[in-house]
């Protein structure tokens, strides 16, 4: 392969990343020139849309390349995953308008997205490590950025410390794996699963646990509720959906082609199951919307990791479909949440009481989101869950599939409780309550379209994943 080809590949294969980077650069320039915080959003939006479009286009063209041998490669499926996640970032950006007027949000989000894009493509742990850090680091800042209340700092700090611990754990695992195999290649992870060597085994476990920590799987979940509650709506939305999805895609990349085996299986069965039950139960008593979503996301991390019990073949599809279905409705709920000058009020579940009578659209959208999160048909959450559990059963882990489903049953209650508040409980608006902003609602509509598409044409979507 000659250099020219390689350069072209480097350009093409990383086109989405380049577009994001370009957006970042433009934004930084604008920031430096001190103008256009208003147009920053549009620039960011443009670059995300362009990146997503590029990813879809390349995926559609069946583009596959490895411009940096052993470091970075793309396949159509990976590109599709990137495109999907990038597309999900659009509503996040749109709903950020009501909270963030500065350009920093956009820059940070773009850089985080850049990290996100690296993950499913990484061939070596080096790139994956950078991807994880690039994904998470801007979020520390983002959590703080809206700073509506003192707890935001606490929230950011907790996230930072535990995420740092995750980083260290990840590195420890990588290091041991490196020692055992002599290679930083991600493809060593799969075979290592079956290894009987203790060090290799510990390495694998540590890497996996680091991902559990990032994705908030019990018992590594504790940061999530506190962080989500302390952050602002768009950031919580981002963390609950894209960040989590990216970590899962990283996990898919790690496991690439390998079926779960050995001690990992136990971890993949038990901890996600505990997560499902824990998350769903703890969510019952919550009073804060974001906190509730956090517990919900803990449970969903459980379902997502269940996918790794299934055969490797359909794993990316299952995870991606789940992430998309789960994210799109989560974003839907966040996008239409009424605005309120008082962040505590906005976040409070009590504020949702009787929302239907004040704002039927928002209430209906939140209800759809909750039902989909609960995994009730015909909403996309169901098909997503179905796919995962189908794979789990196909792999022979029927008992755990049943337990997982029963665990998911526990969650129905608190989602319904939200609907109950929305529709069946009398409530008054607080004086400062307003409808969600126009862009935010536009984000909601986008998500609704996505939800409907996933609900009506899951087959079509799956075909492309």
């Amino acid at each position, binding site marked *: 392969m000659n250099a020219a080809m390689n350069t072209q590949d480097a350009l093409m294969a990383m086109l989405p990343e380049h577009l994001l980077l370009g957006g970042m650069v433009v934004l930084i320039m604008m920031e430096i020139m001190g103008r256009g915080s208003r147009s920053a959003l549009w620039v960011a939006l443009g670059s995300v849309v362009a990146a997503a479009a590029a990813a879809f286009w390349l995926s559609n063209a069946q583009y596959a390349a490895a411009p940096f041998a052993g470091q970075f490669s793309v396949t159509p499926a990976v590109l599709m995953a990137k495109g999907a996640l990038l597309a999900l970032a659009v509503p996040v950006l749109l709903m950020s308008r009501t909270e963030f007027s500065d350009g920093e949000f956009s820059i940070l989000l773009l850089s985080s997205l850049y990290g996100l894009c690296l993950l499913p493509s990484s061939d070596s742990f080096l790139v994956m490590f950078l991807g994880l850090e690039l994904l998470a680091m801007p979020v520390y800042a983002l959590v703080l950025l809206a700073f509506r209340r003192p707890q935001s700092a606490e929230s950011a700090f907790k996230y930072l410390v535990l995420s740092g611990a995750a980083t260290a754990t990840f590195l420890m695992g990588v290091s041991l794996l490196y020692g055992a195999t002599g290679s930083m290649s991600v493809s060593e992870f799969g075979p290592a699963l079956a290894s009987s060597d203790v060090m290799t085994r510990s390495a694998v476990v540590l890497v996996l646990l680091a991902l559990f920590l990032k994705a908030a799987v019990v018992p590594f979940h504790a940061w999530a509720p506190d962080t989500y509650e302390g952050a602002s709506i768009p950031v919580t939305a981002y963390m609950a959906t894209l960040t989590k999805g990216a970590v899962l895609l990283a996990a898919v990349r790690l496991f690439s082609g390998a079926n779960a085996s050995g001690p990992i299986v136990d971890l993949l069965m038990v901890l996600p199951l505990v997560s499902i039950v824990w998350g769903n139960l703890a969510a019952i008593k919550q009073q804060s919307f974001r906190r509730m979503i956090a517990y919900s996301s803990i449970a969903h991390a459980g379902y997502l990791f269940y996918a790794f019990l299934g055969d490797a073949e359909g794993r990316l599809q299952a995870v991606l479909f789940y992430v998309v279905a789960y994210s799109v409705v989560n974003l839907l709920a966040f996008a239409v949440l009424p605005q309120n000058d008082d962040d505590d009020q906005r976040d409070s579940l009590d504020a949702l009481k009787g929302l*239907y*009578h004040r704002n*039927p659209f928002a209430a209906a959208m939140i209800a759809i989101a909750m*039902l989909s999160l609960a995994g*009730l*048909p*015909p909403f996309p959450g*169901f*098909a997503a869950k*179905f*796919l995962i*559990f*189908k794979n789990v*059963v*196909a792999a022979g882990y*029927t008992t755990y*599939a*049943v337990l997982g*489903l*029963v665990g*998911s*049953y526990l969650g*129905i*209650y608190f989602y*319904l409780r939200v*609907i*109950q508040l929305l*529709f*069946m*409980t009398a409530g008054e608006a607080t004086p400062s309550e307003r409808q969600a902003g126009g862009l935010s609602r536009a984000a909601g509509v986008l998500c609704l379209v996505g939800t409907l598409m996933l609900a009506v044409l*899951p*087959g079509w979507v*799956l*075909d492309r994943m």
Partner: protein
Amino acid sequence: MSEFTMGPMLLNLVLWLPIVGAGLVLLAARANDSRARTISVAVMTVQFALALLLYLQFDATAPGLQFATQLPWIAQWGVSYLIGLDGVNILLVLLTAFLGPIVVLGAWTSIKKDVPLFHVVVLLLQFAMMGAYLAQDLFLFYLFWEAMLIPMFLIIGMWGGARRVYATLKFVLYTAFGSILMLAAVIYLVQSLQQSSGVMSFAFADLYQSQLPLSVQSILLGAFALSFAIKVPMVPLHTWLPDAHVEAPTAGSVILAGVLLKMGTYGFMKLGFPLFPDATRAFTPLLMTLAVISIVYGACLALVQNDIKKIIAYSSISHLGYVMLGLLTLELVGIQGAIIQMVSHGLVAAGLFLLVGMIYDRCHTRELAAYGGLARLLPVYSVFFMIFTLASVGLPTTSGFTGEFLALMGAFTAAWPAHLDGHHLPLVLAVVAVTGVVLGAMYMLRFALTFLFGAVKAPHHSPEQPLLDLSLREKSILGLLTIAVFALGLFPGGALQKTELAAKTYQSLVTTSRLPAPAGVTP
């Protein structure tokens, strides 16, 4: 029948009309209550007309699905959009479509708040119920099956009584629990079909080919049965029903009793039993016992209720016990009886709930003791009440008789040879089930006695402001139901003819063993 090529299109229309209607209500009637009602009733009526047309065009001699549509939907999973009419669902589809306009008309004045939303929700529910009956693909069925929950959740929760939130949560959580396990079973079933035959399909017809060992069949049947038995509901999984009925608005009760509960028995008939024939036969004694317990238990509890809605709610448990009994006899007579009983209960319970709703609208209490002598006060109302009471009791010439009579006859017909062979349980059960006939008379007549006879007593009634007897609207919906009740009581032949082939198919599916070939033949 060859000239009738519009069938599939019409069937799709029957299914999707409510969605169109819901859209119209949303668009055209955002804050206009009466327009919402009009659209709703118009859509439902058209749906019924189409369903009736299809019923008439249905060829009773042709096996298999009719007017079927099959489109690939989720090709990767072998899921297709497959709907069609067969003998099992045709009457239920007709019933659902028939009750549609009645529900809307019944709620005409009693639903006062959030009227457009109410109609949207009712239409969505209608869509989901219709879909569940029409679906011939397990995935699709499950989708509709679960989708029914949400509108019902809203109907009870938003327009219900004082304890509506408790009731509606209980309803949904109870039902959802069954569904979750059923989902697991569905996945396993499809997966094992794929592994054994290489066919990835959710179509009922394909799943009927599956061969599973008895132990697996039993577990899967257990999961399906749990889900369906909750819906039916069979004792001891019934406690959600009285609460749901009591708290639901009239329209909710009517739909619940009229259509939704049949979903459980339909599920047994269409899926539970035919999918796992060997397990079904192995567990018939248990299931039959539960069915008979339901008959007696429901009746006994109806006997001591003081809430008029609860009486009917418990009577539903009792009546659906006959359906289960009939289905489990595996005798043609019993099966046919079960089908008729499903429809009959749909009509009768709907009528009774409407009647209770009408009196509730006037007097605002559900306490039996608060009433008396309504026959003197509201003669027209009382006549209808008497008719539906008697239909519920199963008096000959009403639909209730046709169903109960055939179902019990089936039970007995099946039990007698078993008895001669030394298996006495079925006979004992059949005899106990017959006592349900007596208990049925006891609780319904107790109800009627306190309600209609004796000294005039009714809240919100005074000589100066007497209660108004039924309005023309109320009379006409009850009249329609009455006609249906008598039609099915006096002339069930036509309906039975349409379902006979399906009943036979069901019978042969459940009686034919489908255990896998013995080990050694297959690795």
